[in-house]
């Protein structure tokens, strides 16, 4: 944690009170609690039960993630996650539970051409690669050159062989119309869903930031959409909780894009965790479900 105590500004409380009403205090309290640690098993290298058995023999205590049979919540561990030999070998990836949802929703086919438009550090890219069993192609793009080396290192460690790592603004994919079968747009955001990981995020609350980022997200959504094949699917996700960066962006996009429609996400355990006035999307509030705050919507391009 980067600060000893989370500081919630009045503007932060006012904003979320507008969205949550009576639940505000529960939300604030949940933000003070650390996130449960979770790992995703890399089935390219090992089966989940084999890894579980191996780690449990070393004193780890693991609990199944209810919605994903390849992931575990770590209740007890003898060493830090990143220092485990199994981590070095790429047998697991340290990944927050809610961050595992967008690739599950995108559900790529084995021979699909997939774009991960904002890919670093690579948790979702490597998950997609594992789901595709190293077949097909994933273009994993990121804007920050410094973030590319982290992305490449994770792809290498996890043994992903179907990935092309590219560096540049995700907006340039608009120059390649009707190219990808599936797109994951895990857009850059204010990150208010990740306060439990880093309390300093709460201190930085500022309407200017989320308005600024909402505009970037809108233009990324528009340009990535151009590169999606008719009949293709785009999953839009963020790890933030403002309405402007999530539901408002999706609704604006649907209103201005005639060939786009939203598809309801049916994922076991998330039936009640719906977007604000957007029942098709998933919105994870950390006080309602013990995870990082997240938003996920699935858009389909009409044929």
């Amino acid at each position, binding site marked *: 944690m980067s600060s000893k105590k989370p500081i919630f500004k009045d503007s932060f409380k006012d904003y979320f009170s507008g969205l949550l009403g009576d639940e505000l205090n529960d939300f604030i309290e949940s933000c003070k609690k650390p996130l449960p640690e979770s790992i995703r098993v890399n089935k390219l290298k090992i089966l989940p039960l084999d890894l579980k058995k191996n780690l449990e023999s070393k004193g780890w205590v693991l609990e199944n993630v209810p919605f994903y049979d390849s992931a575990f919540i770590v209740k007890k561990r003898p060493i830090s996650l990143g220092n485990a030999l199994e981590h070095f070998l790429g047998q697991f990836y340290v990944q927050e539970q809610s961050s595992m949802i967008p690739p599950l929703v995108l559900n790529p086919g084995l021979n699909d051409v997939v774009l991960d438009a904002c890919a670093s550090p690579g948790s979702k890219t490597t998950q997609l690669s594992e789901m595709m069993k190293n077949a097909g192609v994933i273009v994993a793009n990121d804007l920050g050159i410094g973030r590319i080396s982290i992305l490449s290192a994770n792809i290498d460690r996890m043994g992903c062989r179907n*990935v092309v790592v590219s560096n540049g603004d995700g907006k340039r994919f608009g120059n390649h119309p009707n190219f990808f079968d599936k797109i994951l747009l895990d857009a850059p955001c204010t990150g208010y869903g990740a306060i439990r990981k880093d309390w300093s995020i709460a201190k930085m609350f500022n309407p200017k930031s989320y308005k600024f980022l909402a505009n970037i997200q809108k233009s990324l959504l528009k340009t990535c959409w151009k590169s999606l094949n008719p009949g293709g699917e785009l999953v839009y996700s963020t790890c933030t909780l403002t309405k402007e960066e999530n539901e408002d962006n999706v609704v604006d996009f649907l209103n201005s894009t005639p060939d786009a429609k939203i598809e309801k996400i049916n994922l076991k355990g998330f039936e009640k965790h719906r977007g604000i006035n957007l029942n098709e999307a998933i919105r994870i509030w950390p006080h309602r479900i013990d995870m990082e705050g997240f938003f996920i919507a699935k858009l389909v391009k009409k044929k």
Partner: protein
Amino acid sequence: MRYSELRKRERNKIKEMLFEDYGFSMPNEWMLYYLGKNRVWVLKEDFFNLPLDKLNVEVMGFCLCYFDFKMLRLSFNGAQIVGENANKNVLEISIKEAEELIRGFNIEKETNMGAEYLILKSPAGIIGVGKNHKTRVLCQINKNRRIRNLN
């Protein structure tokens, strides 16, 4: 990123060295390219359907090995793939020895094997290659990848 396909004699030499050193038969469909000096990568045919010249590609596929005509050193991924089907020059090491190596230490061990680089196989999995010094195995794990402590 500049990439160039290996010439036929380079490809044949790699195939020959993989077979001689590890008894591994390289699949004919592997497309071998240089990405960076002496670094050989395996690319998928599908990649060439992408507008690679416009994507500003940093990395693609997986790194197989460092190669010049005198030596071949498998990468971490290369060792894992080749090691699964290798029948010689694979050194069995203990978990304790694997943990020493991933921290950057060499291990004292009689090898009795001929190859310059041995594939290191621990009960947890293949951890890459080590340089064979007959009574010692030298750690070849990239410094960025090493674990600083095991606590």
